[in-house]
């Protein structure tokens, strides 16, 4: 068992290395040189003809795009001003101008619209013909032969996203593995988190003081991960609150969040054996305008004077307004968010702060549910993999193997 996980790591690296060789080969690097800014004197003779060499579908997309390549004598590029690219649906059909390309740039990326009704719709799997014109503004231009047919096609799999797929699979396996082992009753150690341990104390304090508890879910939607983590914590808090018979106030920003929070609190009260204590007036909607919500919550704070404030979820600029108002009424404040920009304000103005990932972990901590704890272990392994990859990557770059960076690149 012990060697399985390290073995995974090695296998992962090998797999990535293989996939990358494929990706690296597909990448064409065509870098334009400096454009000649001086206009050449007018040539009477027409410039040489461009020769279309290829028309390729761009990989990893939904089609509707073609790249046209052509050859042109390097020494003649100074004589022409630019290239024009034309497209038609049959070799002798009507050629329409698609666009231009600088004189030193021998390719054109024909981006068609994917909407059938759009003017420049480029249909997939259809024969398309191209010609390229080397244009001299004040003299005769020359035209290439018609080339084609070329096809644009959509792909079933985006090869540039292979690293993401590998990561998804590996991570899902880790999670399932640890959840399984947790189910079997394997004891998992988790280190203490100050913010979590303060929860009980904070609820107790409010009970002693006979003051309510304010729980703010932030301004996220019910689908934000931070809000979902906060629902679980709300459930635990509500249960304790019901047991202690303290008041709980949950003002909501999003209507769906409100519906969910009502369900969460209601079932927590039920679990605590006090369903009669619950009322929909405890969990209510304020408004879904950011600062109007803050104004409302501020008002609740200074009028209902909660002894404990929880700010757990998604927060933006309002974090500090809430935390400072809460501080002015002398409440104990426990905050947590995954918004990197707001963490400093909570750290500064609140008593306890769950930093980023700790917020997600908190639900597992409070519940002590082996299944949730198992996924914490999987997260730790994810971090370990990251650290290994990082160390490996830095070494690889130090020894001049830039290919490693290609492995972990997502090509869009």
């Amino acid at each position, binding site marked *: 068992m012990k060697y399985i996980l390290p073995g995974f790591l090695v296998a992962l690296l090998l797999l990535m290395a293989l996939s990358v060789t494929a990706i690296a080969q597909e990448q064409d690097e065509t870098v334009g040189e400096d454009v000649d800014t001086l206009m050449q004197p007018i040539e009477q003779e027409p410039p040489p003809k461009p020769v279309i060499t290829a028309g390729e579908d761009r990989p990893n997309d939904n089609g509707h795009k073609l790249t046209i390549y052509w050859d042109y004598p390097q020494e003649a590029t100074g004589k022409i001003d630019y290239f024009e690219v034309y497209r038609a649906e049959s070799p002798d059909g009507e050629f329409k101008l698609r666009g231009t390309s600088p004189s030193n740039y021998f390719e054109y990326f024909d981006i068609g619209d994917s909407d059938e009704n759009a003017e420049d719709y480029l249909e997939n799997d259809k024969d398309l013909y191209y010609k390229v014109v080397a244009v001299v503004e004040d003299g005769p231009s020359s035209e290439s032969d018609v080339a084609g047919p070329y096809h644009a096609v959509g792909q079933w799999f985006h090869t540039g996203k292979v690293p993401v797929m590998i990561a998804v699979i590996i991570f899902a396996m880790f999670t399932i593995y640890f959840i399984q082992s947790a189910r079997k009753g394997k004891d998992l150690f988790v280190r203490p988190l100050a913010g979590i341990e303060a929860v009980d104390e904070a609820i107790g304090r409010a009970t002693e003081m006979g003051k309510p508890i304010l729980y703010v879910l932030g301004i996220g939607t*019910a689908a934000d*991960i931070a809000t979902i983590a906060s629902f679980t914590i709300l459930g635990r808090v509500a249960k304790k609150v019901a047991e202690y018979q303290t008041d709980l106030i949950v003002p909501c920003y999003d209507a769906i969040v409100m519906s969910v929070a009502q369900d969460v609190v209601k079932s927590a009260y039920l679990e605590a054996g006090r369903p009669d204590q619950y009322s929909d007036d405890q969990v209510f909607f304020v408004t*879904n305008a950011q600062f109007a919500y803050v104004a*409302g919550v501020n008002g609740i704070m200074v009028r209902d004077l909660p002894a404990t404030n929880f700010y757990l979820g998604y927060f933006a600029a309002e974090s500090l307004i809430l935390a400072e108002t809460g501080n002015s009424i002398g409440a104990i404040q426990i905050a947590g968010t995954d918004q990197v920009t707001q963490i400093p304000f909570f750290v500064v103005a609140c008593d306890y702060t769950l930093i980023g990932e700790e917020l997600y972990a908190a639900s597992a901590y409070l519940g002590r549910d082996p299944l949730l704890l198992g996924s914490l*272990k999987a997260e730790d392994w994810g971090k370990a993999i990251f650290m290994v990859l990082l160390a490996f990557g830095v070494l690889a770059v130090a020894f001049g193997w830039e290919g490693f960076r290609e492995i972990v690149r997502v090509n869009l």
Partner: protein
Amino acid sequence: MSKTKMTAWVVFAFVIIAFAVSVALKGALVTVGAFLTLFIFSFLYKDNPYYKFAEHLFVGVSAAYWMCMGFWGTMVPNLFGKLYPPMVGGVLPALKDNPAEPFMIIPLILGILLLMRLAPNAGWISRWALAFIVGTTAGLNLVRYLRSDFIQQINNTTFSLYISSAAGFDFGQTMSNIVIFIGVLCGLIYFFFSKEHKGAFGAGARVGIIVLMVTFGASFGYTVMARISLLVGRMQFLFGDWLGMIK
């Protein structure tokens, strides 16, 4: 009449007179904006009836504002307009001739299911709609976070520790890169949940929290500038647009 009550009435009379004078001199619109601004600022002193007024007005108006935006911006063009285009022909003539999209009946049903929670015994039905929303975004988040927060970050942090520029070995840049590398590693160690923070691991976690704290201090200090700019903007409104005291 008690003294506090007396003061309150005097203040109230003063506010009303000031409001009237301002309407007469500067026009109603800018006056309303200015007084509401002042009402909100009064919260800094303490909670008071004027703040309460502004707050409650703000809540009511903003809730209705977003409801209307949601209705005209989403429901009409994206739901009714797609289900049965002629229905919205009166308000959005551009959509009238689009073909109907019967699929759009699904969100309508889910939306109605969601409203079922108002019915006393059918609350559980609304969970279908919630499951739909959460499921959709959970899947989306899974790949999005893995890509941008995990794989992309490895790529960004994998750089050469040793930097040499045209002028030779760049000591400062090399040191900076080493600090970033160690900072990221130690920061991650701090976030380990299933391992006790002691020994070498604990030292790593300690360095991690130090780096985090320096960052929090710096971000805090950095934001001061942006917040002061906001206040300057409000003050320009009050003293410039309203009172005309700024040239």
